[in-house]
């Protein structure tokens, strides 16, 4: 949970200044918060409760919700084999992101560094996938993964190696999730790299310099100096990456529809399948709430494990 750290908030030191301004300040605070609070309550918080309400019904989205079934939707979700597969797949994407994507981003951030000639060029190129929409990204990669070497670039490269057959990347239940992860990484690693670059630029040069003069080798330097000093940035990046991985939707839906046979099913595609394909709106709402609770639980645990306040702060 958020806790105000001392020194973060400034109250005028003199008692009289404070009291004479109290009312005026309150008014300003109220007015400043008003627009965002109203929009947020109406378009975000109210729909959350809307979803909670419908999640207790067997409701097909047409007409009023009348068939109240209490927690049955939730019971079904938590025992549904396919939902558990979706959760597992989400977790696999989370772990792969943490194990591969973020270290890669950090590594590239360090390589691009502070004064490599041409660093602005590399930075721009690496960030570019983030600028493209998920729709464009999915269409691009669908083409690359095409199993027919006459049409798919990856297989066209593959068959140049003697004795290697083209491989149906998105059609094989063993590789499809990995392919989705590759595309997600392609799109988002630049964003995390940018975070790390900014973090690195805030590490005073003399700290590293001093450590180096003290005889630290580069691994010691990396693990004992750089990474600890980057801890705040890393926490932020991990937090955003985990939430992003849990909520990923459009890319997966366009690329695989969660298939074949649920091999790339994630929670959001599962929700979409029930809500918009099979019209079980009550059930779909319950899935949305379960996703919401999973993200909330992660946030709470994460903030407890990392007690320092980051600039993302919050829950």
């Amino acid at each position, binding site marked *: *949970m958020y806790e105000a750290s001392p020194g973060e908030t400034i109250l005028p030191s003199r008692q009289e200044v404070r009291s004479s301004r109290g009312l005026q300040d309150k008014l300003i605070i109220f007015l400043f918060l008003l627009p965002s609070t109203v929009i947020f309550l109406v378009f975000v*918080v109210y729909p959350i*409760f809307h979803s909670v309400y419908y999640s207790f019904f067997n409701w097909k989205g047409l*007409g009023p919700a009348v068939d109240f079934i209490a927690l049955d939707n939730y019971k079904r979700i938590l025992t549904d084999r396919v939902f558990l597969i979706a959760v597992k797949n989400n977790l696999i994407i989370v772990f792969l992101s943490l194990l591969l994507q973020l270290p890669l981003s950090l590594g590239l951030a360090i390589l691009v560094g502070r004064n490599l000639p041409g660093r602005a060029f590399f930075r721009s190129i690496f960030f570019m996938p983030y600028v493209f929409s998920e729709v464009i990204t999915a269409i691009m990669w669908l083409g690359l993964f095409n199993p027919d070497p006459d049409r798919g670039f990856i297989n066209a490269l593959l068959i140049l190696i003697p004795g290697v057959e083209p491989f149906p990347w998105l059609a094989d*239940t063993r590789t499809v999730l990995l392919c989705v992860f590759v595309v997600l990484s392609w799109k988002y690693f630049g964003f995390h790299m940018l975070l790390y670059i900014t973090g690195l630029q805030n590490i005073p040069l003399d700290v590293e310099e001093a450590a180096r003069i003290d005889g630290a080798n580069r691994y010691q330097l990396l693990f004992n100096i750089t990474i600890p000093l980057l801890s705040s940035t890393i926490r932020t990046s991990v937090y955003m990456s985990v939430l992003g991985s849990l909520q990923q939707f459009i890319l997966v839906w366009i690329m695989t*529809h969660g298939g*074949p046979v649920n091999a790339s099913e994630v929670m959001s595609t599962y929700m979409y399948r029930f809500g918009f394909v099979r*019209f079980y709106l009550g059930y779909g709402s319950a899935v949305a709430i379960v996703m919401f609770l999973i993200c909330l639980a992660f946030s709470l645990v994460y903030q407890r494990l990392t007690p320092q306040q980051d600039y993302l702060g919050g829950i």
Partner: protein
Amino acid sequence: MTHKIFTLLSIILIAVFALSGCATPATTVPTEEAVVEAEPTQPAPTEPPAEPTAAEAEVEPTVEEQPQVTVTWWHIQVADDQKALWQGMADEYMAAHPNVTVEITVLENEAFKTKITTMMQSGNPPDIFQSWGGGGMNEYAIAGLLKDITADLEKDGWKDTFSPGALGVFSFEGKYYGVPRDMGAVGFWYNKDLFAQAGIEAPPTTWSEFLEDIQTLKAAGITPIALGEGDKWPGAFYWEYLAVRIGGQAAFDAAYSRKGAFTDEPFVEAGVKLQELVALDPFQEGFLGATWPDEQVVMASEKAAMDLMGQWAPGAFKDASVDKQGLGDKLGWFPFPAVEGGAGDPADALGGGNGFVVGKDAEPEAVDFLKYISSVESQIAQAEIGLSVPVVKGAEVGLTDPMLVLVQQGAAAAKYFQLYYDQAMPPAVGGVVNDAVQGVFAGTLTPEECAAMIEESAQMELK
């Protein structure tokens, strides 16, 4: 920390309930929320002075004092010539009826499905919109979102202009909610050159001949079948057609009426036959992840010999080929082979089509306009550009493509016409059929498990 969360949640709860008056489930007090929810089902606000329909239709153009009416029309024909045809008709109609404005929204198929879902759930249907009839339409009808146009159809013999089978798809419990514009049967499209190359003289008529031909094609180094099973519905055709051939009308009727079940022998047997086919590995590499557009390209580039698909296939092959000519004379068509010992008649067909239904708030002008675009002249024009396999009598003359004539005759000759399962049944069951059959294609489900999955969903949905 924990208690903070609780305080937070309870405060939001109070705030939101105060803000919205969110009705708690058990409450019967008509709070604001309850009113909002009730709205969609309120019987369509009684049609404004019910009479004028006929009168207005007669007097038409010059009368200025007629109230201005807007008809919203949603269709999914995004191809240039098809879109232009519809737009042209709307323009003509508006010229003849100055008091009517037709507002067209054109959406691509998938986008249409997403959007119409939200529109319907909010109780706000367009006046005229694309529909495939059957189970999906029935759900809208039950929820009171569609307008009953039975009376209009009875008048002046409008009803009799349609072929009854096609029109029947748009009826539910004796009432009509829309009209068809297109209807055809699914069958095998095949590449005559590739068949000849493998030494196959005539297309197969039975399932065992079919399996033999597949082996012959494979032996000749030709991929026998193109399939986009990533989209699921192309593969579901195989299982559904096998069920039609093995169990015939009786099996489906029994399962649908709940006197029988989808775990009955014919449906399991359909899975077993499908397994036989899959075991021969007749599909192009990566078919499990491929889509229907991929399937088109495989066929159009002559990389596979056969494709089980509906009446839209020749047009799609043209689209997908380099020179936009499709397979030309090489393209042939044969009906789904008979299964030895099956109860179904070999002439029975699986298929379906497209049409338009009328939203609950539609003005009489909307129905009049629907009549206009369903005229025989309109149907001929649609057939000429390959948009529709016509369902209005006398419009067959517009059908120039000999292949489409075959499909049209196939559908017309069928003693029993089985609508695609995802249209014959509620969308939820259709979705499960598609998912379960994909499991058989992937080898992750046995025929029994596949049938059981479908039956489980049917128990929930069919009464």
